[in-house]
Structure formats: C-alpha cells, structure tokens
C-alpha cells in the first residue's frame, strides 16, 4: 500500500471533504476545516487558494462569484468527479490510518 504521505494529497482530501459539506467560499472552507478539526488544522491561507484553484482546474470543484451581502465572494462547490475522487481518497486514508493504528497499538 502506498502511504498518502505528501501534504498536497492530504490538503486535497481536507478541502474536498470540507466543500462536500456544502458550497463555501475560501475563507469559509478554512474556517470549516479549523472547526471540524477542533483547531488542529489551522491551514496556511496562502496555500489554500492555490489548492482550490488547482482542484477546480482538475474538474473536482467548480466555482462562481456570489454577490450576497456583505462581500463579493468566490463560492466553491464539489462536482461529481470531485465526489468520486473524495471517496477514493477517503478509502486510501482510512486504509493507511488503520494500518498505522494496527502497528502502533501492539
């Protein structure tokens, strides 16, 4: 089994998972990850936007401008391809985490 050890892979998993809960703008995605991880993942904001753009170029996310008050924002939503990719990444991560747990629990 290949370990999903590179940060980009984990960042993609976190972002896709956060956006899969519902459309959100970049700031909202960062806040969502921070809240859901109880503050453990305080993502560097400068890395999140390039990642969101990359995921959109891959067809895993789509985005549009939202002019709802009080600010204009770019809102991201997950695509069907993104849901499929998220499912694969979730399974890979679960298998990896389970294997690590099995080793360290001895």
């Amino acid at each position: 089994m290949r370990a999903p050890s590179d940060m980009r892979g984990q960042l993609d998993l976190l972002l896709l998972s956060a956006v899969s809960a519902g459309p959100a703008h970049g700031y909202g995605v960062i806040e969502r990850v921070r809240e859901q991880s109880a503050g453990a993942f305080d993502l560097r904001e400068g890395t999140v936007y390039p990642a969101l753009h990359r995921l959109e170029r891959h067809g895993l996310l789509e985005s549009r401008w939202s002019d709802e008050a009080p600010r204009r924002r770019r809102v991201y939503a997950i695509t069907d391809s993104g849901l499929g990719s998220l499912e694969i990444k979730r399974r890979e991560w679960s298998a990896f985490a389970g294997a690590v747990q099995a080793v360290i629990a001895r």
Partner: protein
Amino acid sequence: MIESWLAELERQLRVHGRRRRRIVDELSYHLHESAATHGEAEAVRRMGDPGEVARSFTPRLIDRAFEQRDRLASLTMLAAMVASLPLAWTLENVGREGDSRAWVWFLVFLAPTAAVALVSCVAALRRLPLGARLAGPLLAMVAATALVVLLDLPPARGEFREYRLAEIGVAKPPCYLGCMPVTADELLASCDRDSNCVANDHASEIRINYSVGALTLSGFYLWAVTGWTPRRRRRERALA
C-alpha cells in the same frame, strides 16, 4: 498593509488575463474579511509571503501539462481522427474507377467507433463525466476493430482484397500476366508468388500501423481522462 501585500503579489504573479484578476480579487476579498476579524497585520501574516503565494499559483509547465492531460489527449485523439480521414479516403479510392464502397465501409465498420470517440473527446474537453465513462468502451471498440483488421476478418478482408487488387492494377496495368485476361483471384495469387509485388506488404503495413496506433492512442486516452491503470485498479480492489 493589505494593499502593499496585494501589490507585491501582483508584481510576482506570473498569471495573466481573467485568471489574474480573479486571483487578486479573491485574495483581496479574503484579506479584508480576515482583517475585519483578526486585524490587518494578522490577516496578512496568516496569508503568508506574497512571493510564495504567487509562485503557488504558477505551476511548472510540466505540471500544467499533466493537469490538462485529459484535454491534451482529447485534442490528440481528435487530431488523429481528422488526420486519418484524407489518408483513409485516398486508400479507399486508390486505383478504383467509378463508384467506391468507401462510405459504406466507413459508416458500417468505423463510424460507430468514430462517433463514440467524438462524443467522448468533446465531453472530456468540457470536463463532463461522460468523456471518462466512454473511454473504456472506446478502447474495447478500437480493440475489436483492430482484431478484425489484423485477423483479416470481414468486412476488413474484402476491403483489403480490393485495396491489393487496386494497387496491383496501379503498379502493373493491364499486362501483369502477359496481357492475358485474368480473374481477381488469379491476380492476387500471382502477387503472392511474386517477390516484387509489394501490394501485400503495403496492406500488412497499413493493417499493423493503423491498428497498433489506434490501440496505443486509445490506451493513452483512457489513462489520461480516467487515470485508470491496471495497478490502480488492483489497489482500488484491495481497498474495497
């Protein structure tokens, strides 16, 4: 402070046009929103170094090509289809007078595969899931077509027989057997015995080159639009 951060980002950003405006606007809105909660200094600190952020938006050419591999593969497939049409037309009509069965051959044998390829490529260019869904069936159709051509089964057999006869006729008009009237079967049999008769070699080259080329391209296309490889399939099965 936010404005100077954005100015530095713009200075170092190697992205142009609408994408550039979008990046600057998006980060500007983000920084102002963050500043409303945390203050300008903290908002800028949390965003990080503008040069590093700018470079993150500018992937290397090889990375960009890899990200766009599905579209590149679609364009390659479409280009190969378009490029093969004049050659196919020439081959169908070489040395033949009057009506040709070119369109019948094309419609009955190749058109379904070409239609699936066309729909899949257009969908893949637009990043629709249909493009990836059709890539597997397309490879299967191309493999079946290649098998028919390589094994010289109908309707490929008839077409290549006509092609060989046409080429023999072009190369050796009309006195190939001492100006004696001969049947098509006799003409082909004499070509089989004649080491200088290259019609069979040409037919084999066309069969192999077209079949292997189409199979390779379809395999590449499948990988590019779905990311599918036998190794990945095994890993997914293991995880399931």
